[in-house]
């Protein structure tokens, strides 16, 4: 077989279809059933609303590639958002608040990473525990109430535009390009493939597996801290249940995008498409006035269908 065509095949057949087919089918379905779907305003809306999910799904891809998982993202996102809101209310400084949110993300990422890498606790258990801790802290700090009264200037981070492009879309593009560079053009990214693919190879090459794992979860935490800024700006408040279940959407987007939970087989562009597919599905169902609990069921079905299509095409 010609080597070049083999490389192309890797790109075209084995990977794109599942998520691409799902995305095309979703767009066609909603485009035909709801007149408001295929309008420029609505498309911009879908992309804007997908930003927060993308900020979670990008590091989730990296984490899953290491055969890990982060179930705590939604809860940490919530807590970081609350810390952001409380800080901006008490100090009046959005910059300080943003740094506080990033610090929260960093600390929880470090906590997860150390437990997983050094104490060898399975990622599922570790991050499930962290989910509980972060969720509890959120309720503790807010007493179950929303934090309101944030200056309106914060809102412009979410609603503003630059040259007609929504600011969140620009942030999403930067986050995607940054993660792409990290994954495909740095040593760290190269070793992420090896973490899930063959840890022995890393050890033989004299590279610290623990350090890599910790950095992976810290990266996730920082992205969550960043997402907290956007979420607070979007809601113009912080609410102790605002981010609940976001990790489900993120894991779903990664799975729909074709990243495997084994062997370090990850695909970042697939995650981007997966995030858009989830966004399109939610948006379309909203237009059809489907209630949000039914939407969760639809996302679950989406994951299964996309993976089923991938499974049909995978080599035996």
């Amino acid at each position: 077989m010609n080597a070049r065509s083999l490389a192309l095949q890797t790109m075209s057949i084995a990977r794109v279809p599942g998520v691409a087919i799902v995305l095309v089918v979703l767009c066609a379905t909603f485009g035909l059933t709801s007149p408001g779907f295929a309008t420029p305003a609505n498309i911009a809306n879908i992309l804007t609303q997908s930003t927060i999910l993308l900020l979670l799904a990008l590091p989730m891809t990296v984490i899953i590639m290491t055969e890990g998982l982060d179930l705590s993202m939604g809860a940490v996102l919530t807590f970081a958002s609350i810390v952001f809101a409380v800080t901006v209310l008490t100090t009046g400084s959005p910059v300080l608040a943003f740094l506080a949110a990033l610090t929260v993300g960093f600390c929880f990422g470090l906590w997860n990473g150390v437990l997983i890498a050094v104490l060898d606790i399975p990622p599922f258990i570790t991050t499930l525990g962290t989910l509980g801790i972060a969720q509890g802290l959120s309720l503790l700090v807010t007493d179950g109430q929303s934090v309101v009264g944030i200056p309106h200037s914060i809102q412009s981070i979410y609603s503003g535009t630059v040259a007609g492009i929504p600011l969140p879309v620009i942030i999403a593009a930067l986050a995607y390009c940054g993660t792409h560079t990290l994954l495909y053009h740095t040593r760290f990214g190269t070793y992420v493939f090896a973490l899930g693919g063959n840890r022995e190879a890393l050890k033989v090459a004299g590279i610290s597996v623990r350090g890599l794992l910790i950095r992976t979860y810290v990266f996730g935490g920082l992205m969550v801290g960043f997402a907290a800024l956007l979420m607070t700006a979007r809601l113009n408040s912080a609410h102790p249940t605002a981010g609940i279940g976001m990790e489900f959407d993120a894991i779903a987007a990664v799975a729909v995008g074709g990243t495997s939970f084994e062997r370090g087989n990850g695909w970042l562009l697939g995650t981007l498409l997966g995030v858009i597919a989830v966004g399109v599905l939610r948006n379309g169902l909203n237009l059809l006035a489907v209630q949000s609990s039914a939407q969760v069921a639809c996302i679950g079905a989406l994951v299964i269908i996309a993976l089923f299509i991938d499974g049909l095409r995978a080599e035996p």
Partner: protein
Amino acid sequence: MTAVPLFELRGISKGFPGIKALDDVSFELRAGEVHMLVGENGAGKSTLMKVLCGAYRADRGSFFHNGKPVTINDPAAARKFGIAVIFQDFTLVPYLDIAQNIFLGRELSGRLPGLIDRRRIHAEAKRVLEMIGFDIDTRILVHRLGVAQQQMVEIAKALSQDARILIMDEPTAALSDRETERLFAIVTRLKKNGVAITYISHRLSEVFAMGDRITVLRDGRKIASVLPAETTPDRLVTLMVGRPVDSTYTRPSRPAPGDMALEVKNLSGPSGLADINLNVRAGEIVGLSGLVGSGRTEVARAIFGADPISAGEIRLFGQLIDGSTEDSVRRGMALIPENRKTQGLALARSVADNIVLAGLGRLFPSGIYIPARAIKAARAIIEKLRITTPTPRRPVATLSGGNQQKVVVGKWLNADARFFIFDEPTRGIDVGAKAEIFRLLDGLVHNGAAVLMISSEQIEIVRICDRAYVMRDKRIVGELSRDDLTEANIVRLGTQQ
């Protein structure tokens, strides 16, 4: 040859708890020479290579590089002398491309800080691959490559580190004939470039075709170091086995074999098994011998129904079986797997729980578990097999290896099994317990059961079995019985091409 060797090991000893893996072994590597290392399973070949590459630290002995004494305490030290190893388990990352794999951990930096220069990595990888005459797009992900191509990538990886000494552990074990030829061409080319190569092999034809020098290990000791011209395959086998080729052992007397218990005809399977024919009669212990990787375990799994088959038929007590494990168990077949800890036992559960596990349906037809009945059934088995345990309630994990093995057998006895497949029944069991296991096998066949036993230790096959099949390259290459059933014949069939 009088020149100073490139690298030399003298008087290397290495022990592990309970065994002496290497005992005063000396070994030398000369530039441009292929040094073959042969010996039976467990002779110490891999241990010696691991000492050489720094993975193990020798208890005693010294190293010399170009005649000067040096120390090797870790892999980094070995790398400094240009020592590179290609293990049987590759150290490749499936979803990185060829170039990234070759330079894993030694990525070339790009102009921007923190970034790697992928273009230069590909160019360098291309250059290294050209050295071994392997023309392939370096952007192909490694999981798309066949075993042989992956091996080429491993070799390229070693060479890119300026390897002057290349260690290969059974490099042809997974290769086809054509791929093997290609590997030989590369080895020849490396030799010309002055690389010292040491090569562990079980294939005698290869040893004579490629070796410039042959060292035989047995039981951790160097038995001989010879030039190929000075010896013959038969003499080499004698050296490996360590006993005169015609020596035989007396097997315990057994009743004449009864009805056919297992009959396998023209079995082939996706794991590569080709045209397997074998049979086992009631009251018989039949051995399945061959090197690790020759397909013995695959045969066992196919017969048991754990792996699918693509052709052929399997009859158990005269009846065709449908190829599912449930059906096999129901008809009285038992597979006692190689790794009893992970595949045969629930270690944390009690002896009694383990014993009744495979017979739950028969013991408790109502579906309700009655502890007293389980304990009673377990006691009967414990007595029958003489399992040493203070109480049936003791967790299996606390028992000795031999007794754990008995629990596995007891489990199947309780399920009324009459045909047993044992995969390496004595692995990890001390000598005394081995004798117990053999008595157990003997007891099983005396009571009319049939046994198929896989073992890597030829001596066991010779001592225990009435007949034996020898496998090589996923095929059965011979059947030995009576006076033909000798260690030398097993080794000869299992290694020659």
